[in-house]
C-alpha cells in the first residue's frame, strides 16, 4: 500500500497531503525521503494549533516551521497562551487568522506588531473571555478599521459579553474600505452604532448588539 501511494504523481500527493492535519502529516511523512520532504515543503498549510500541548507546539516551532515555506502558510488558528502569538510573525502571507483566549497583556503586540504586517489577511476572528480595557479595544479597532489591513473582508470580534464597546475614541480619519462582514459580539449604544457605520462604508453583512444609550448606563 505504501509503495502504491509513492507511485502517485507529485501533484496528486500534494493535493492529498493538504487535507492531512499538518502535525500528523509531518510525524508520518517528514524525512521519509527527499521527494516527500520537497512536496511537504511547498504545501499551503492550514495550521490549527488549538488544544496543542507544549510538546506539540515545540515540535511545530522547531521541526515543522524550519522545514516549510512559511510564506505559504495560509491559515493559522492559535490560543493566546504563554508567548505563542509571536509565532504569527513568521507567516507573512496569512489569509486567515483566529486567536482564542486573547488577553490584555498581548493586545499591544497584536495591534502594533502583528496585524499591520498581515497584508494578505482577509479573515480575522478574535475571541476573548477575559477583561479587555477600552484602550485594548481601541488599539485593535484602530488597526482593523484602517487601510493597514487593506485585504480584510471578514472580521469577528467576540469579547467578554457583558462589557460595552465604544467607537467614539477611534482615529476618525481611518476607514476600512475592504470590510464586507463584521460581527461584534459585545454591547454597543445606539449612538456608538452610528459611529461604527462611519468606519465601514462598504459593509454588507453586520451583526451587533444594541442598547439604548440613554436608558442603560
Amino acid at each position, binding site marked *: 500500500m505504501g509503495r502504491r501511494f509513492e507511485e502517485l504523481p507529485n501533484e496528486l500527493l500534494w493535493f492529498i497531503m493538504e487535507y492531512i492535519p499538518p502535525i500528523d502529516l509531518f510525524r508520518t511523512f517528514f524525512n521519509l525521503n527527499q521527494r516527500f520532504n520537497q512536496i511537504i515543503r511547498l504545501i499551503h498549510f492550514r495550521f490549527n494549533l488549538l488544544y496543542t500541548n507544549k510538546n506539540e507546539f515545540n515540535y511545530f516551532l522547531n521541526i515543522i516551521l524550519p522545514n516549510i515555506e512559511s510564506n505559504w502558510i495560509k491559515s493559522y488558528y492559535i490560543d493566546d497562551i504563554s508567548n505563542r502569538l509571536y509565532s504569527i510573525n513568521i507567516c507573512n502571507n496569512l489569509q486567515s487568522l483566529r486567536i482564542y483566549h486573547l488577553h490584555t*497583556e498581548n493586545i499591544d503586540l497584536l495591534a502594533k506588531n502583528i496585524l499591520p504586517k498581515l497584508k494578505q489577511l482577509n479573515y480575522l476572528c478574535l475571541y476573548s473571555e477575559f477583561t479587555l480595557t477600552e484602550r485594548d479595544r481601541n488599539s485593535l479597532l484602530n488597526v482593523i478599521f484602517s487601510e493597514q489591513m487593506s485585504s480584510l473582508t471578514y472580521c469577528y470580534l467576540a469579547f467578554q459579553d457583558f462589557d460595552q464597546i465604544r467607537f467614539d475614541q477611534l482615529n476618525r480619519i481611518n476607514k476600512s474600505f475592504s470590510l*464586507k462582514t463584521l*460581527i461584534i459580539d459585545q454591547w454597543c449604544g*445606539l449612538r456608538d452604532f452610528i459611529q461604527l457605520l462611519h468606519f465601514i462604508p462598504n459593509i454588507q453583512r453586520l*451583526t451587533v448588539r*444594541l442598547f439604548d444609550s440613554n436608558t442603560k448606563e
Partner: protein
Amino acid sequence: MKFIIFERKIIYSRTIIPSLNTIDDFTILVPHLIYLRVKLSQISFTNATKILFLRLPSQLRELSISTWSIEYADGHSWQTLLSSKFPHLKHFRLIISLDQIPLNHSITTNSDLDNLVKSFNQSKYFLDHHWNVLININELDRLKFVLHTIPYPIENFQTTFYNIRRCTSSSMIIKSTYFYVNKLSLTLHDDLVRNHIDDRYFPNVNQLIFLSNLRKDSQQFQSIEYFNHLKNLINLSNITSLNFPEELHEYPIQLINILLENLPKLNSLTLSHRLNVYLKTQSINSLKTLTLIFTMYSSIFPPATRMGHLLLSNQILTNELILELVRTFSHIQTLTLILRHLDGFDNQFSEWLKRIFLNEQNISYDLLLNDRIVRFYF
C-alpha cells in the same frame, strides 16, 4: 458618577458624534448593507422602528432580531414595517426570550398560545414568506417564554426538558427546528417526568452547558433516566465542551460522571472543584483542558478571614492545592483555576507562582489578576 458619564456623552453628541436625528437614512453611510443581525436590549419596538429599522437601506435581504421584549411579538406591526420598508427581504428571523411570563398574556391552554402567534402564523404575508414562529413555555426554566421563527435562527439556545408547552406545530417541523444550535444550555430542575416524549432534536451541539435550578438533594436526582432522555434529544457524538458553571448551585455527580463516559469527543470540561473531587479520574484523563472554579483563594488553609470559615475546604484554592492539582493534571494541555465571589489573587501569590513554577519547575502559566484566573500550560 453616572451623571458625569451621561454629561460627557451629551457633549460628544453635540460636538463630535452626529446626532441620532441628523442622519435619517443609513444608506448614506453603508449603501451596500444587505444583512443585519442585531440583539436589542432596552429599546422599545416603536423606538427601534424610528431610530433603526426605518433608517436601514431598503435593499436589505436579511433582518435578524433577538430581543427580551414582548412588544416585538406583534406580527401586524412587523408586517406593516417589513412589507413597506424592505420589499427585497428574503429572510426575517426573530427571537424573543423572556425570563418572566408577560403579565397581560394568557398562556393557560394551547389555544392561548396559538392566539399569541396568530398574527404571524395566520397571516398571508408571513405564510407566503415561510416566516412562521414557534413558542416554547416552561415556568421551571430560566427563560420561561421563548418565541422564535422556524428554524431557530442562531447558534445559542437555552431550554430545559419536560413540561414544555408549545403552540400548534407538526412534530416534523419541531424535530428539524434546532439544526443550527451548537451551543446548548439546559436548565436542570427537580420535576422529572417519566415516559417523556420530546419531538425536538439537536444534531449539531458541540458545547453543552448545564444550569441548575435543583432544590431537592441533587444526589437524589434521577441521573440515568435523565441521561436516557438526553441522548434521544441531542447528538452526543459532536460535543467537545461540557460546562457546569454555577459554582454555588447543586449538580448531580452521577449525571456528570455518566456524561463524561458518553461524550467521545469531549476535550474541555468546566466545573467547580467541589464537584471535581467526586469525579471518576479515568473519565477526565482524556481531556485537553480542565477549568476548576473556586470560591476564594487563601495561601493556607484554614483561611484567615471570617467568611472563609463558612466555606468547605474544596471551595478554597490554597498554594498546597495548586501544587497538587498541577501534579495531577500535568498530562492535559491547560489547567485553568478561576476564583468567583470572594478574595482574589495578590502580589504575594504572583511572587510565589514565579518562584515555584517558573524558576523551580519550568511550567508556563498566565496569571490574569483582573479576571482572577491562573492558567497552567503543559
